[in-house]
């Protein structure tokens, strides 16, 4: 077993275990922090796949920006535990059937995907080791060139998407206050600000 295989299993194990713990946690803050650990494992896998650019933006954008946004909201809403113990018990009783169905569906999904991969292997479509493959594209230079030539239009559309998401988030999260009277100044309006 070569070092790359050991690294693959370690990093993949970190990603899988951390992801499982994300959905097993009661406390949303722990879930968010564990998801950052999972992203760290995935980032190592991207380095193994000769994609350092993706590994770095995984850490900077996903772990650094998106997850911090999640943490902000979790702390803003101030719900440390999603339910009290009693609620939890009622919950499990009410939802036991649907939770079992969900678990079965997820298991089926794994079986289906594994079966698809396995059958692709028997049909001769299996992929060999990553070593005997065409040269990897690692440089940011090449990625940037392709991004700004062949993918220039999707890139521009992305900027519009970000703008729309930004405006949409502001509009959705804004508290609907009654429009202040014509004479009311900003100081008067700020007294009736909500707690959050």
């Amino acid at each position, binding site marked *: 077993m070569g070092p790359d295989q050991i690294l693959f299993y370690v990093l993949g194990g970190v990603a899988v275990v951390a992801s499982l713990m*994300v959905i097993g946690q009661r406390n949303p803050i722990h879930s968010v922090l564990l998801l950052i650990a999972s992203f760290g494992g995935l980032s190592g896998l991207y380095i193994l796949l000769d*994609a350092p650019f993706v590994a770095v933006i995984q850490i900077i954008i996903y772990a650094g920006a998106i997850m911090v946004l999640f943490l902000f909201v979790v702390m803003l809403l101030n719900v440390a535990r999603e339910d009290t113990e009693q609620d939890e018990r009622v919950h499990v009783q009410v939802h036991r059937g649907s939770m079992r169905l969900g678990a079965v569906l997820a298991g089926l999904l794994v079986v289906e995907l594994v079966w698809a*991969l396995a059958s692709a292997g028997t049909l001769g479509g299996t992929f060999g080791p990553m070593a005997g493959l065409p040269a990897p594209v690692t440089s940011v230079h090449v990625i940037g060139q392709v991004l700004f030539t062949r993918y220039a239009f999707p890139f521009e559309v992305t900027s519009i998407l970000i703008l729309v998401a930004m405006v949409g988030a502001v509009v959705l999260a804004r508290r609907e206050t009654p429009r202040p009277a014509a004479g009311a100044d900003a100081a008067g309006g700020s007294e009736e600000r909500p707690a959050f």
Partner: protein
Amino acid sequence: MVTLNQYLLLSAVLFAIGALGVFVRRNLITILLSIEIMLNAVNLTFVAAGRAFGTADGQIIVFFVMTVAAAEAAVGLAIIIALFRHRESLDPDAFTSLKW
């Protein structure tokens, strides 16, 4: 040597974990986190396939997926904040007014 199939299997397992989270959990924030897990599983597929074919396309699509994930997280969290203000709850079953 690690094969592409191993990466695809890992990605399938991660995707199923994310789907399990969406099916099983009753917390809007955890459901959004599970969606992020699924998006990352797909990203791993893209990067592994891009590496196998020796092109930059896989990495560029990951870039776009991350952008969409950021937009989705921003709008989704804004919706969660607005919902929490209405019902003081993060349970999706608390928001069934539109259900017939």
